[in-house]
């Protein structure tokens, strides 16, 4: 039998629950309103199926149908998602030898990729082929700001940047490609002109921040993570010499990072660099939370608090 005291306490709890439930929902909504989930891959290299069960280190890992399922589940929970890739979609399995990238691009379109950049191996079946695959099968842009492709088959099929709206948030995404010399055969690179990635990325990032009023600027890069012994421009160089980039999604060096690297840019602000190996073994995820300011003045000393997401 319930005592009177107990009954009152129970009722209060129920009533309180009823009252606070909508508030909770609202609070959660408000939080997700200002949250952006960035999902990313790089160097997927035609790995549509999981790595074969042949005793090798990565056996059984990856597979686009599993990646697609995870992305779908995340989209069901999160209203604001950006799905990005950092290039080298092509070459690595017989799929590419047979179909020249068609199933790779179709799978990415199905998964709802928002943008990719161009990797050196994306030239492997020629620029004409890449342009055709993008035109016929891509429902996302290929972004690169430091390749002048005027007069090549890629003209009109790639662009320097794109602006995305996610709820109240404006996000600018740009792309940079690696130097073709010594890496991409001349006959494949054609009359493409490689421009300094740091200078070009800074120019475009400035436009995104000041003219397009982006709250977040993301650079998709196929430059490579770091080159301790070679004189090649890396994501580390780009991060340190950048001014308006918040996040660099890297590729090319197939680097597995346990957590994003953080550098200080030319303005003293944090820049994150992340890369998730190759072959679609890992789907990278970074959840950003935004604070709202009601005036134009941005706090110059504001630091991004970066942490590992606790698993619930």
């Amino acid at each position, binding site marked *: 039998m319930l005592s009177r005291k107990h009954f009152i306490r129970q009722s209060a709890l129920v009533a309180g629950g009823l009252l606070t439930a909508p508030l909770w929902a609202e609070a959660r909504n408000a939080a997700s309103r200002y949250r*952006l989930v960035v999902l990313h891959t790089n160097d997927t290299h035609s790995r549509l199926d999981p790595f074969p069960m042949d005793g090798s280190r990565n056996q059984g890992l990856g597979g686009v149908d599993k990646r697609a399922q995870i992305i779908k589940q995340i989209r069901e929970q999160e209203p604001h998602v950006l799905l990005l890739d950092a290039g080298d979609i092509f070459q690595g399995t*017989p799929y590419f030898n047979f179909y020249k990238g068609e199933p790779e691009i179709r*799978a990415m379109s199905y998964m709802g990729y928002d943008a990719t950049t161009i990797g050196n191996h994306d030239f492997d079946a020629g620029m004409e082929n890449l342009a055709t695959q993008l035109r016929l099968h891509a429902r996302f842009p290929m972004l690169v700001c430091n390749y002048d492709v005027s007069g090549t088959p890629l003209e009109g099929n790639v662009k320097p940047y794109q602006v995305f709206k996610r709820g109240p948030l404006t996000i600018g995404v740009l792309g940079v490609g690696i130097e073709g010399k010594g890496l991409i055969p*001349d006959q494949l690179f054609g009359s493409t002109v490689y421009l300094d990635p740091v200078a070009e990325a800074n120019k475009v990032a400035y436009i995104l921040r000041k003219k397009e009023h982006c709250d977040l600027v993301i650079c998709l890069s196929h430059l490579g993570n770091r080159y301790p012994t070679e004189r090649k421009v890396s994501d580390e160089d780009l991060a340190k010499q950048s001014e308006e980039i918040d996040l660099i999604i890297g590729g090319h060096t197939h680097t597995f990072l346990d957590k994003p690297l953080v550098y200080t840019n030319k303005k003293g602000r944090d820049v994150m660099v992340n890369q998730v190996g190759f072959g679609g073994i*890992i789907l*990278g995820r970074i959840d*950003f939370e*935004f604070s709202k300011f009601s005036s134009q003045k941005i706090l110059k000393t504001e630091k991004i608090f970066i942490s590992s997401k606790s698993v619930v």
Partner: protein
Amino acid sequence: MTRSFIIQLRLIHPAILVLLAAFASCRTVYFPSKAEYSSQRITKDLSIDSSLYRIVRPYGDSVEKSMNTIIGTVRQTLEKEQPEGTLGNFMADAYLTMGAQQFDKPIDAAFVNFGGIRLQQLPAGPLTIGKIFELMPFDNVLVLQQLSGTQLQSFLDLVAARGGWPVSGIRFSIRNKKAVDIFIRDRPLQPVAQYWILNSDFVASGGDNAEMLKSLPQLSTGYLARKALIDYVALQTRQQGFVGAQLEKRVIHAQ
């Protein structure tokens, strides 16, 4: 500048103008204050998106079917070895024999860069197309270049310095990392003669440090090196019923 700005603004509806003014004076900005990373490993036990599976499967089935197609039988396991190996000889013979049908020039010799052989051996037994793809995954094409005897000597010295590459149509010895006692089509190398030499476009374009080839004009029909291997398997199967190559002292270390 200000003037034209005003004129342009006047073309806009007054209501929008008011709105624009409101935004300009007090635009809401969002600053990323917090970032949490949590990457997801794509493991075997995860469930699949069946719609995407159905999109990709027909491509995969067709690739798999092709890859499992048996195109011949290897009689004795072919091995990748230096300075000479049976697997390399098989490949160099394939390039020379099938290349001869692509060009209207008399090809004197064909080369295979040792590093471009991507299998240690081709085991005895049924041979699938998939194995040829493993052996030669790159989409390199065969190209023909004309070399003087002197230029050929310098290329052979590179091959010798790298421990010997598979060759067909030519034999030589390696002494002090140089090529000596060179015979092309059984005749000694003549410094002033001209030779038609077949390579993959990778080597012909200066790959593996073949700098001496880089500036020489290339003849190409777009014939893939891998296609030459597949076609040669068919030819050998037709002619002798099996796939194979012998050690013939094409490249040896001088005593």
